[in-house]
């Protein structure tokens, strides 16, 4: 199996698994087991803070993952029925809680490369906007958004509401510094461990240091015990946090080299695919910062959901961009925002390379992608006859 769906979840790094295996103890307990647990938690938190460049005076609140972190971003800083300004590309973990809170959602305009237009956004009337939310990188296209620039511009214009960013996809795949975003005026950031080789079930909410009396009030999503300075009640998920800490230790050392390696494979994959298959359009921008591992492609004449199945049957895991158990055909929001038709937007797939992707994988993917697309287009071109006539043995038997 060749795995090209790291933006859904990446393969957990073996060292992380090992480090998580033997954990026991509640960090809040007084006794020896509790103290050991507390020490492990602190060590892991330090590794994570260091890799994500979280300032000492900023809060790092462990959560159950990206979705909880995103929910906290928007619910922690808003009250019901307020105006909010978000990009049209936000994940449902951002948009759904806002809708449930009856927020008056306004969308930021995009440029032709799929990034938001900072100048146009800064010209909008922000007077009673309670929250500005812009993902740091698109999970679909991999385009990194100018969050710091937008934040600086808005703060420069006197905007005092919350500015938040879902950075789930970024650490390990692009430069990431919470400190720099906070300096630019960002209020809070969501991150997730399993998008860069950590375990599922853990993420964090990073909250900017409070530097003046006019600090924004954050309302915790989960209340109960006094853990995590009351930002998030509940016993910390220690095995997962320790495993994530281990991943951050590794990435602190070799993240840059790994990213460059993966980006080179991604670029090579794109050029090999376009060499062997006609009618491909790259939606991942070719200029400006992008995630190192992501390649979003429009495949003319192929249903994206069928491509996913066809490649799966060949042992290659890709996705349409949004994992959906119900099987309902999803259209690419990025493609729609870029002005493609609904039919084209349902022909978009995402290839997101994991940290262990190799050149051998690449060669095999190109060959199989080509076979699957060719077969689908063949059937499409003679489908007017309703049924591909022919012998019982069939001419397309090589497929499944």
């Amino acid at each position, binding site marked *: 199996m060749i795995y090209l769906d790291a933006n859904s979840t990446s393969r957990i790094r073996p060292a992380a698994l090992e480090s998580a295996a033997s954990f026991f103890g509640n960090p809040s307990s007084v006794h020896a087991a509790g103290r050991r647990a507390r020490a492990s938690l602190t060590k892991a938190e330090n590794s994570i803070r260091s890799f994500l460049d979280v300032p000492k005076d900023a809060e790092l609140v462990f959560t159950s993952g990206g979705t909880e972190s995103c929910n906290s971003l928007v619910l922690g800083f808003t009250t019901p029925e307020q105006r909010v300004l978000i990009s049209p590309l936000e994940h449902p973990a951002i948009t759904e809680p806002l809708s449930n809170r009856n927020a008056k959602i306004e969308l930021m305009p995009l440029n032709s490369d799929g990034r938001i237009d900072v100048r146009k956004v800064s010209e909008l009337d922000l007077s009673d906007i309670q929250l500005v939310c812009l993902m740091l990188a698109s999970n679909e296209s991999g385009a990194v958004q100018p969050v710091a620039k937008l934040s600086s511009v808005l703060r420069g214009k006197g905007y005092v509401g919350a500015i938040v960013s879902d950075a789930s996809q970024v650490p390990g795949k692009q430069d990431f510094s919470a400190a720099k975003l906070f300096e630019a005026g960002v209020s809070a950031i969501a991150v997730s461990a399993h998008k860069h080789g950590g375990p599922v079930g853990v993420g964090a909410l990073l909250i900017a240091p409070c530097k003046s009396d006019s600090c924004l009030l954050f309302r915790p999503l989960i209340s109960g015990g006094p853990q995590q300075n009351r930002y998030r009640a509940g016993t910390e998920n220690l095995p997962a946090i320790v495993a994530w800490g281990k991943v951050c230790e590794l990435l602190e050392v070799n993240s840059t080299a790994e990213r460059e390696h993966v980006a080179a494979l991604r670029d090579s994959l794109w050029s090999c695919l376009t060499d062997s298959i006609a009618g491909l359009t790259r939606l991942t921008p070719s200029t400006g910062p992008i995630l190192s591992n992501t390649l979003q492609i429009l495949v003319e004449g192929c*249903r994206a*959901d*069928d491509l996913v*199945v*066809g490649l*799966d*049957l060949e042992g290659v895991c890709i996705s349409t961009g949004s994992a959906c*158990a*119900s*099987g*309902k*055909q999803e259209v690419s929001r990025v493609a729609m925002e870029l002005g493609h038709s609904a039919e084209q937007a349902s022909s978009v797939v995402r290839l997101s390379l994991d940290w262990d992707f190799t050149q051998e994988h690449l060669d095999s993917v190109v060959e199989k992608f080509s076979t699957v697309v060719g*077969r*689908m287009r*063949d*059937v*499409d071109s003679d*489908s007017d006859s*309703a*049924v*591909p*006539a*022919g*012998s*019982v*043995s*069939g001419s*397309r*038997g*090589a*497929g*499944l």
Partner: protein
Amino acid sequence: MSNELKNLSGQSVVVAMSGGVDSAAAAILLNNVGAKVVGVSMQVWDYRAGGGNASRATCCSPADFNDAREVAEKADFPFYVFDFEDSFSESVINPFVKSYLEGKTPNPCLECNRKVKFRELRKRASGLGADFVATGHYAQVKDLPSGEKGLFTGADQNKDQSYFLYAMKESELQKTLFPVGAMEKPEVRQLLSDTGISIAEKPESQDICFVAGRVGDFIEKHSGVIAAPGPIVNVAGKILGQHDGIHNYTVGQRKGLGISNPEPLYVLEIDAESNCVRVGEKQELERSEFFVENLSWVSESVSHSEPIEVLAKLRYRHQGVRSLVHPLGDGQARVEFISDWSTVSPGQAAVFYETETDQDGDRRVLGGGTISANVSH
């Protein structure tokens, strides 16, 4: 095991899995003979958005997909849910609603088989490199002396579903498998039970899969047409009562008319134009002939001009009446009952079978058409 399952080892087959017993058995049978099985459930209707009650739905609910998925996991073949909501809406639900509003009683399973399962699913399956599409229908595909493939009734006469498949073409049969068609239902349940599949005792689905309550309510909700009450009249035109919207009635219906009469009354005709339900006694319902439209023959080699003697089944589970089909061209035919007169419901399918069974006691499907509301051509 059916002859058709032999030699399928290594062949790739997309099996349409509803989550029910029969399609699960079809997949297991194919998997057992070494075919490369790919299970596919068809998402045709969003119960949450569509207003249906998923727990009461008769198939295609998320719970049914989970049942199908469990079978695939147990037998270790890949399983996917394909989205057919748009084409199902266009090809099945919209015509169903329109036809009901015209006072007819359509059968949506026919259109689903014709346009969705054996056209769109087949196309997508071919795109994935599949050699065959299989379903859990109780019907059989057999070799004919002419070298063609023939469509036949299922071996289990109580379960036979060939009625719903009459619109298939011979060229489609070449690429279609009905693995349980040669089996009896108890054998099918036993097979699943032996394989350790928990749905072995799952009840039969009976109703229209996307309607979780009264059909009339569904029609009103989906079309936005508010039921307009109107008169119920006898053959002489005398008003006997009020109806609550013509789409709540079916030709041949006796119960629920709310009219007292010395002899039982039946719906004879539904006139959408005048919003009128005409009733009468049983003998007035019976006809000597009727017309069909959208006439379809399985074999390409059927004569399009000579009258053909057939056994005509006028609804699912009908025992059939000997009839003569007179093709009229333009997809239409006049069907003349040879012996007894019979009742027909416009919108339902008339399915034409050979008058004699084959050596196994199975009966060949020749074709069929939609019963027309017109009483004359």
